[in-house]
């Protein structure tokens, strides 16, 4: 940025800060000051506006570094992105209003100053948005990973008997995981009976049923037996209405009954002592 512009901005420094603080409080009223104490708010506002002005004096890399550590701290404490973008928009408006209020300024100079200020503030906004979306993408990625780990666990409950409890919506991606995890688990645990528990599946439509039927068929091919358990009454009725044929493998209402019949199939039973 041209030194003359920096100098001019600096000469308005106090006025800009005062005016900005006044306007930003108006903007923020009713938006997010319910959850944040006023003192914290004023403190952050002060720090923010000083940081904006401070970036003028720093080299580009240093300015970036300063902004990054400031935003990282605020992202961590959960400040909304709109606080920054609105804050910067107000800052730019205030600054330009003050600078152009001087009638003596030639119009060419005004135009130059405008574009200088524009690119300066836009740079800051871009960096902030990048930091924020980066942190969101990161969170999303981690959550996807966590979800994937949870999506299709096969638990060996007894010798030769494993259970796969399914909770939540089943989409194509997950159906694939269920199939893989079932077949791998059967080989690994040497299971002869697998219980698929759908107590936690909210909706069983034709697609979900189709995936379950395919999984059961694949289980049969590797020499094990599949029992579908946890069929709630309303799910049983919708399956009948849809006209889905689940007759190829046995079904039980609860996991307990499933385990009992699994033990029976492997010639064992639970007795009280």
């Amino acid at each position, binding site marked *: 940025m041209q030194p003359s512009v920096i100098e001019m901005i600096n000469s308005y420094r106090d006025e800009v800060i005062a005016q900005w603080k006044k306007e930003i409080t108006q903007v923020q009223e009713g938006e997010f000051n319910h959850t944040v104490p006023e003192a914290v708010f004023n403190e952050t506002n002060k720090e923010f506006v000083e940081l904006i002005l401070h970036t003028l004096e720093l080299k580009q890399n240093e300015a970036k570094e300063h902004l990054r550590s400031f935003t990282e701290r605020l992202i961590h404490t959960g400040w909304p992105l709109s606080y920054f973008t609105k804050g910067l928009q107000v800052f730019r408006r205030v600054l330009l209003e003050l600078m152009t209020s001087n009638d003596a300024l030639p119009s060419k100079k005004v135009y130059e100053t405008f574009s200088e200020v524009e690119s300066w503030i836009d740079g800051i906004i871009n960096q902030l948005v990048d930091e924020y979306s980066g942190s969101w993408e990161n969170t999303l990625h981690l959550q996807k990973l966590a979800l994937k780990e949870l999506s299709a666990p096969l638990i060996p409950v007894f010798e030769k008997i494993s259970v796969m409890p399914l909770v939540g*919506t089943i*989409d*194509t*991606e997950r159906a694939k995981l269920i199939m893989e995890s079932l077949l791998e688990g059967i080989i690994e645990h040497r299971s002869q009976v697998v219980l698929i528990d759908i107590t936690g599946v*909210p*909706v*069983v*439509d*034709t*697609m979900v*049923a*189709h995936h379950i*039927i395919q999984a059961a068929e694949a289980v049969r091919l590797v020499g094990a037996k599949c029992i579908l358990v946890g069929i709630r*009454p*309303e*799910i049983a*009725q*919708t399956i009948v*209405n*849809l*006209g*889905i044929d689940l007759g190829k493998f046995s079904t039980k209402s609860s996991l307990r009954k499933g385990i009992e019949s699994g033990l029976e199939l492997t010639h064992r039973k639970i007795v009280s002592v």
Partner: protein
Amino acid sequence: MSVQSNVEVHSEWGIVSARQAGRNLAKELGFGGVDQARITTAISELARNIYLYAEKGEIVLEGIEKKEAGGVHRGLRIVAKDQGPGIKSVREVMEDGYTTSGGLGAGLPGVKRLMDEFDIDSITGEGTVITVVKWLR
């Protein structure tokens, strides 16, 4: 009474949010557990058809009323709209076991059995509108 909600379907998550909206509305209108399951399953089938065959479209959910001799009857209407390729033979898709995608072929005939009223309007190359209603008993 006009509780209405539109849900855009252009990914598998659209199916989930349409279903969720349907379940909430059904609950609000006073449908019982089994009918809630029927309604959400029907929405799931319709939304999945949109996603599979037309790629994008929308599900409109609405609480409706009709006056009858016995008093006012309330119900839930689901409209599934898309501008997809349309259905070549409506008669065939309404047969159990007919499928073009390797599925079970139970979707549309199943929806018809799950709901009380079923209406399908499809023009090849222009799109499909399916309207179904479940009345509160």
